[in-house]
C-alpha cells in the first residue's frame, strides 16, 4: 500500500516501522491529500487519535500525528508530519467528524491551529488562558497567574 502511495507522491512520504508498528512521515504539503486517500481509497475510516509532540531544538519544532485504524482491514497506521512554530495545518474535520475535539485539544495544549476547523477554541483549559502547557518551554508548575487572580481571586494555585 505504501508502495502505491509512494508511486503517486514521490519522496514526500517515508514509511518506517518500529516495534512492529507502521508509520509514515509525510511532507506537510501533502497532508490533506494523503489523509483523504487513506480514508477514501485505503478504507482507514476510524481516526483513533490526533496528537502532537514538541521538539524545541529541532528546526521544525512540532510533530503532528494522526493514528488511523481501518475496520475492514484490521490495520492501524500512523501518519506524522513536521511543522514549524506558528505554522498551521489543514483540519481533518471534513474527513473524520470525530477529529473535532481531538484537534481542539492539540490547539489547546500546543497552540497549533487547524485551518478550516468549525470551532477552533480551547477545550480543556479555560477560554481566557494564555500559554500552551504541553510545550516544552512551559514549566511544570507554571500557571496563567493573571487568569487565576481574576477568576479565582487567589494569588496562585500553589
Amino acid at each position, binding site marked *: 500500500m505504501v508502495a502505491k502511495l509512494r508511486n503517486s507522491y514521490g519522496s514526500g512520504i517515508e514509511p518506517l516501522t518500529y*516495534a512492529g*508498528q507502521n508509520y509514515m512521515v509525510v511532507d506537510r504539503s501533502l497532508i490533506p491529500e494523503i489523509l483523504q486517500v487513506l480514508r477514501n481509497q485505503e478504507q482507514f*475510516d476510524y481516526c*483513533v*487519535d490526533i496528537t502532537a509532540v514538541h521538539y524545541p531544538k529541532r528546526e521544525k519544532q512540532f510533530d503532528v500525528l494522526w493514528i488511523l485504524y481501518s475496520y475492514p482491514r484490521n490495520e492501524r497506521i500512523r501518519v506524522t508530519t513536521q511543522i514549524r512554530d506558528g505554522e498551521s495545518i489543514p483540519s481533518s474535520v471534513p474527513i473524520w467528524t470525530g477529529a473535532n475535539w481531538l484537534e481542539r485539544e492539540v490547539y489547546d495544549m500546543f497552540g497549533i491551529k487547524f485551518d478550516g476547523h468549525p470551532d477552533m477554541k480551547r*477545550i480543556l483549559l479555560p477560554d*481566557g488562558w494564555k500559554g500552551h502547557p504541553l510545550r516544552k518551554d512551559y514549566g511544570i508548575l507554571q500557571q496563567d497567574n493573571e487568569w487565576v487572580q481574576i*477568576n479565582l481571586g487567589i494569588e496562585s494555585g500553589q
Partner: protein
Amino acid sequence: MTDQNSSLSHLDLETPEKPFLDANELVINMGPQHPATHGVLRVILRLDGEKVLGLECVIGYLHRGVEKIGEHRTYTMFNPYVDRMDYVAAVSNGLGYCETVEKLLNVEAPPRAQYVRVILTELNRIASHQLWLGTHALDIGAITPLFYTFRDREEILKIYEKYCGARLTTHAFRIGGLQYETYAGFEKDVKNFLDFFRPKIDEYEELLTTNRIWVERTKNVGNISAQDCIALGVTGPVLRASGVKWDLRKAQPYANYKSFDFDIPIGQNGDTYDRYLVRMGEMRQSVRIVQQAVNALPEGPIMAKVPKVMKPAVGEVYHSIEAPKGELGYFIVSDGSTQPYRVRVRPPSFVNLQALDVMCRGQLVADVIAVIGTLDIVLGEVDR
C-alpha cells in the same frame, strides 16, 4: 464573566441585527455541579420548549495535566497516575500503560502474570459496568438497581483490597508483570464470586429489561447509526450497540485474550436500550472469561526480567486496550532517558462525548440525562 461570554460566543450575542434569541429558542445551562452529569460536566442546551435543538459540552473542570506530569516522572513513577484518570476502571488503565511500556522495552509479562492480569481486568469490567448500571438507572429514576449493584460490587472490591491493598485506585500491575503474588485463597475467592454473581445479573435484568417504564424511557432514545459512530470515532459498547461487531480483544488481542473463548454482544438500533443490553451481555461474557482464566491459572514467575532503571530505546509506540468504556490508547514517545518524552492518553470517554450532540438532537431534556448516562463517561478520563 469574560469566561462565560467567550464560551457562548458562537451563539452570536453581540450582533445587533440578529434577534437576541430565536423566538422559541431557550439557552439553558446544565452546570458543572449537577447530580446526573457523572462528574463535573457542563452542558449548554439550546431548547425549543422541552425539545433539544442542539447542545455544547464544556469540559476541562477536572483537567489535572496528567500528560504534562508524565514528562516529569520516570516510567515506574507514572504508573499510579494512570489509575486516577478513569478512576472507576483503574485496573484497565494500568494494564494499558504497562503493556505499552512493555512494548517499548520489548519485554513480555510471563504467563502467570498474564492470566492474573486478565482476571483482574475482567473483574474490573464487571465492577465498572455495575457502577454504570446503578448510576444510569438512578439518573432515569430507578433507584433500586443502585443498591443491588453497589452491594454486589463490594465483593470485587474486597478481592482487590486483599490483593493489592486498594479498592479504587489499585495500581495493581507493574511494568513487566505483577509485584504481588496472588494471596492464598485468591482462586477460591474468585470462584466464589463468580458463583455468587451469576444469578445477580439475572436479578438486575429482572428489575429492568422488561420493565415498562424502563423500556419507554430508553427505547429509541439517543439513537446513533453505525456510520456516525465510525465517523466520530466512538468505540466500546456504544459502537457495538449500533451493530458493529468489533472488540479490540478479538481484533487486536493483547495480554492473552487469544486463549479465551467469549462472544461479542451487539445490538441493532443503537439506542439506549440496546446499549443497556450490550453491557449486560458483556458482564456475562466477562464472567465466562474469568471462569476460564481461573480454571487454567498456571504456576510460574510473575515478573519478567526488567531493568531496575528503565531506559527504553528511542522510539514511539501506540498501544490500546478495550477498556470498559471503549478504546483506551497510550502513545508514548521515548528519547532514551528514564522519563518518557511524551505520554499521550487517548481517552475513550473524551471521544465518545463528542457524540452527545448527535445523539440528543430532537430529543427531550429528560433524554439528555439518559444519554449522558448511557455513554458511560468518567470525567477523570475526559479531562485527564
